[in-house]
């Protein structure tokens, strides 16, 4: 169990995938999610860590936060 200040309803594991994989994984999951759902996207791709929040902003969802783990990042997105 990882210590985190965010609680996710759904976890999308995109570790080891590179751009555009993590964002495509997230978008695919966002399509199925109800408003209020919090998705944790796990990515080891540094560029996705910065680019995914840009997409979240453009798509009108809410970025709850980005947490750095030992060898990946967790991006928390709340669906609006």
């Amino acid at each position, binding site marked *: 169990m990882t210590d985190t200040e965010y609680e996710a309803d759904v976890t999308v594991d995109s570790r*080891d*995938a*590179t*751009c*555009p*994989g993590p*964002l*495509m994984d997230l*978008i*695919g999951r966002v*399509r199925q999610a109800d408003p209020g759902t919090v998705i944790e996207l796990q990515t*080891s*791709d540094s560029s996705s860590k910065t680019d995914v929040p840009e*997409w979240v902003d*453009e*798509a009108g969802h809410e970025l709850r936060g980005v947490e750095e783990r030992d060898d990946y990042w967790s991006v928390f997105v709340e669906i609006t």
Partner: protein
Amino acid sequence: MTGYAFVLASGRLERLQAVGNIASIAAASEIPVAVFATMDGLEAFDTDRVESLNFEMGPVAEAMVTSDDVEVPLFTESLARAKELGPISLYACELSMDALDKEIDEYADLFDDVLGVSGFLKRADDKQVVFV
């Protein structure tokens, strides 16, 4: 303008990868995309070429192909996934096919139609054209 129309005329892998990434993210974000593969850009979709990764490429694309650490999706994989997620259409250039006496089934199974220039321009008239 609603979306992007990529004219993909290059067979170099770094350019194919860039188009694959940008077009895929756009389509998955519900931004309409059309891709017109022409000249060497169409030849890059030849199934044998895709299978053997037989592309001209610069250092960045070479690093992507040879990396042991990460899994980099090929442009064909990104585009296939984009077709599942959003509004993207791919068109093969008839002139380029005729020049090599090829049929559409010799290319990756991604194309929606075979078109000439006029046919593509008609489908691109409401989009921003990006030439690669």
